[in-house]
């Protein structure tokens, strides 16, 4: 099936700026769904607020466009009521880890079979380029004209420490990895986090002299490497891409069904 079969074309043109990485994520996310042959009627996309969250409007799945930071909280309800559906949550970095940080760590802890995609562009794009908890230090944003002093979260470490059972990272440049990791995440029977570094040339790139979208994508190629690569050993500054954890653990909805079973038998 062609990718555009999954799109709600009446909502196009999309709102993303020229050069935004989020379209690459959308494209490859849909390829993953297509390759897995998941029935559109069994897919639920739940998103919060922000540039990334607009994805839920563009895809022809069941979709909920909810509150800033609350995608995972709403998704938890969806999955509890309809555990047979595949639930995917595209989120931004501010969305997932600032205002939604609490939901994020608790979703990791519960290990419910949800797929969280964190599209990390290190900035609040929709509201005009304020720094986020993923911006890190030394970043110019509209709320940090003298550069940030706030340290950033490491999404991978946070997810691992909070108990997520599938954790992966890639970038908008490595589009094939996006498809592969989202495929793995969707098939994984537990809580999955896929961090995708996604360029925001309009707000992050421009203010931090990172060039246009092409240059920002080149940067992803240059400053990332596969997990455990020789390059990483030579240059510890490189950001690792790959699957950091993929292990099974009791899944929340299955455990819940089992609990009901036990209660009814006793």
């Amino acid at each position, binding site marked *: 099936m062609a990718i555009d079969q999954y799109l709600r074309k009446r909502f196009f043109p999309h709102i993303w700026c020229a050069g935004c990485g989020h379209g690459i994520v959308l494209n490859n996310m849909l390829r993953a769904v297509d390759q897995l042959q998941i029935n559109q009627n069994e897919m639920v996309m739940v998103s919060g607020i922000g540039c990334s969250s607009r994805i839920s*409007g563009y895809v022809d799945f069941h979709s909920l466009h909810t509150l800033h*930071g609350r995608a995972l909280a709403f998704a938890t309800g969806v999955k509890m009521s309809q555990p047979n559906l595949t639930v995917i949550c595209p989120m931004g970095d501010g969305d997932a880890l600032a205002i939604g940080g609490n939901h994020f760590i608790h979703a990791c802890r519960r290990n419910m079979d949800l797929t969280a995609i964190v599209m990390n562009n290190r900035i609040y794009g929709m509201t005009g380029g*304020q720094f986020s908890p993923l911006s890190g230090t030394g970043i110019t944003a509209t709320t*940090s004209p003298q550069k940030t002093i706030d340290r950033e979260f490491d999404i991978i470490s946070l997810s691992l420490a909070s108990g997520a059972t599938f954790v992966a990272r890639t970038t908008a440049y490595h589009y094939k990895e996006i498809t592969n990791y989202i495929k793995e995440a969707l098939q994984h029977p537990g809580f999955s986090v896929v961090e995708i570094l996604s360029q925001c040339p309009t707000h992050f790139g421009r203010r931090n002299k990172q060039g246009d979208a092409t240059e920002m994508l080149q940067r992803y190629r240059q400053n990332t490497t596969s997990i455990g690569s020789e390059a990483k050993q030579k240059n510890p500054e490189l950001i690792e891409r790959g699957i950091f954890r993929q292990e099974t653990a009791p899944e929340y909805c299955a455990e819940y069904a089992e609990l009901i079973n036990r209660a009814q038998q006793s």
Partner: protein
Amino acid sequence: MDMVQNTEKVEVVSGNKSAAYGAYVCSPDVIGIYPITPQTSVVEDLTQFIADGRLDAEIVEAEGEISAMASVIGASAGGARTFSSTSSMGLFFMFDSYIMAPLYRLPIVMVNSNRELLPPNTVACSHQDIMEVIETGWIHIHVENCQEILDAIIMAYRIAEDPEILLPVDVCYDGFYLSYLREPVNIPSIEAVNNFLPTQDRPTLGGPNNVFSCIYCGADQEMAELRYRQQDAMEKSKEKLEQVEQEFAQHFGRSYGGQLEEYRMEDAEIALFCMGSHAGTARVVVDQKREQGIKVGLVKLRMFRPFPQERVLTALKNVKALGVIDRSVAFGWKGGHLYRELRSALYGHGLEIPMADYIAGLGGHDITIPLIERVVDETKGIAEGKQYQEITWLALE
């Protein structure tokens, strides 16, 4: 343009920048923020003031509005002058801490850029967001234009910090219509504002004998007394606004009518009643209808909480019919919030004024001159004894 007294400069600015200037000239110590459309540029401008060395304040860019307000409450409890800004769903996420500010009796000043709620997905203007928090104990002042935003913020600090009041004030302006509208605004000098708004010594929340430091307050007289005093302070804030406005006019040469403004009401037989940016449009319609010989006036409500019942009764005492324009829906009640408040305020005071409510401007739908003309025409019909519909949704007609 004449330089109005104590004006340092006149600058063409958006409503958001006017709000930022309003906070800036009041020299806040701590500002707590989180981005949300359409208020975000308020804090961007304040951040720039600090970066440029013009404003000596601490900014907390929190991880959400609830923490933004929490940080401001903490700072205010410690004696700091504080400022915040939000809108719509941000206001609701702030709610837990928003509702604590008046209970703590903290003189926090913030702005709300009035906006619709979700769903459906919109960031456009209405008064629905602020109307959901009208009974929280915050003083709510609504404004009509960019100058009034700045002036209302300065006056808000005077009211909030008054030892008889000690309540937080939310200055509310219409999202998009004012947040991004650019108008020439008189910006007073900090010195002039300092003269008008001296720093007040006030009790802070610390100390072992302070009731707010206690771990538990029983269901006894103490609780009732706290609530009674808070209600009493709200009542007093009505007269305080009138006094502060008079002083403001002496210092800066501008005034807005206090709790409400009566426009061409002296001999008015019918009146429009509204609040917010479209009061400007209503003013134009009143002028046009007056030229046609229709004796119509406008009451522009400025203070929604506490509700200025006495001023409303005085303003409407000679009116034969009233057309109310509501930019929000009081779900579960027939009309909008202004209509509901008016019905309640007039009851039992011998003013049986027939009134029609017009729900308009939801989701950023423009409240245009023709729409308000229609309200005037129908209100005139009511005064002449014609049958009328109690509630009309203008966008659905």
